[in-house]
């Protein structure tokens, strides 16, 4: 069976996996990092977004073996000890979630877009959210949260 060696939230991981194992399943089933959600499993919803070498990807559409040698960050790896990540705090402040199912993917996507764009207007944020679906909020609070967090990050 193929073996995969990678870093997940700073921890070295080595696992024997079937070639077909998805990165989302490696994270959830093997490593018990269940913050990464699987909403559709068909590359549409973005609930499964994690960072692979610093880039936002849909972990349901990556094989675990493709992550060989990579650095993976999940929602669990974002916050420091005892404090929320600023984007997490902004989602709480601006009502960026209701049921919370889409939230891990939304936040991982938001962190990626803020890193690339800095401060953003609402139209840019909506365009960047193309790959993330939310069935509760109507997106207004999500966009407000990212807008605020992006301003804060840009200083």
């Amino acid at each position, binding site marked *: 069976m*193929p073996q995969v060696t990678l870093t997940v939230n700073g921890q070295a991981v080595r696992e024997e996996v*079937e*070639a*077909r194992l*998805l990165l989302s399943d490696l994270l959830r089933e093997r490593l018990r990092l269940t913050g990464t959600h699987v909403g559709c*499993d*068909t*590359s549409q919803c*973005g609930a499964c*977004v994690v960072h*692979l070498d610093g*880039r*936002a*990807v*849909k972990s349901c*559409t*990556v*094989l675990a*073996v*493709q992550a*060989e040698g990579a650095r993976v960050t999940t929602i669990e790896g974002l916050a420091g000890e005892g404090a929320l990540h600023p984007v997490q705090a902004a989602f709480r402040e601006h009502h960026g979630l209701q049921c919370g199912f889409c939230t891990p993917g939304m936040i991982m*996507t938001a962190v*990626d*877009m803020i890193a690339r764009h800095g401060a953003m207007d609402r139209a840019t944020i909506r365009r*960047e959210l*193309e*790959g*993330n679906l939310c069935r509760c909020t109507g997106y207004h609070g999500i966009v407000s949260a990212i807008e605020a967090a992006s301003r804060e990050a840009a200083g």
Partner: protein
Amino acid sequence: MPDFAYIRARTIAEAVEALSADPQARALSGGQTLIPSIKQRLAQPSALVDLGAIAALRGIAREEAHLRVGAGMRHAEVAADAGVRALAPGLAALAGLIGDPQVRNLGTLGGSIATNDPAADYPAACLALDAEIETSARRLPAEAFFTGFFETALAPGEIVTAVRFTCPRAGAYAKHRSPASGYALTGVFVALLEAGPRVAVTGAGPGVFRWAEAERRLAEGFTADALEGLVPPADDFLSDLHASAAYRAQLVAVMARRALAGAIAGSRG
């Protein structure tokens, strides 16, 4: 999803050897089309030959009047590349319109053109920018590469290694996205090359094609009103739940005018 063997190729030769040894093996690049297809049992490969670690498939280089883009370059990398943005801004913009940010972070040029989805974006850029497709075995013009509905000229065991796009004097892409998938309901790339104007259409027909009548009009004058009133015949166009053939024909006309306006606005003289 059914299991398969997994081979990580280090060189083009290794990939070609592994693919040639097993007719049921498939190349894996960004996985953004292949992994969903395997989940849906549309593809059932015996083995995946991962091209992701092959350094020779990476990189973007200027070669005189051409831009050579490695098959392994991701959509987000092409969209952000300073050289592409300066020399072929329409190509950079097109790459930035593919799917969504997460798909652009993994999906590659080689995987896109090897699939030749009739609604894919890159094939339009290849035809409009008179691209040459480099494979592990040969070089061929884009028009000979895209052979039909999800069909290309690739032989078993042959992989795309790079695409050489001609830098246009002017060029832009206009796309009407399917709101559900992000793919092109229709997309039109209008370019002015040294050799003359080109108009390539994707999403409308069973495969990407050049719109000869529009090119003829633009050859008479590459001006903002050159395509006024021109609508392509809808005879061979796709008709499905997303749009009728007649609606697609109308969209081609509108997208062509928008692309022309974009090309003129961004013209390098």
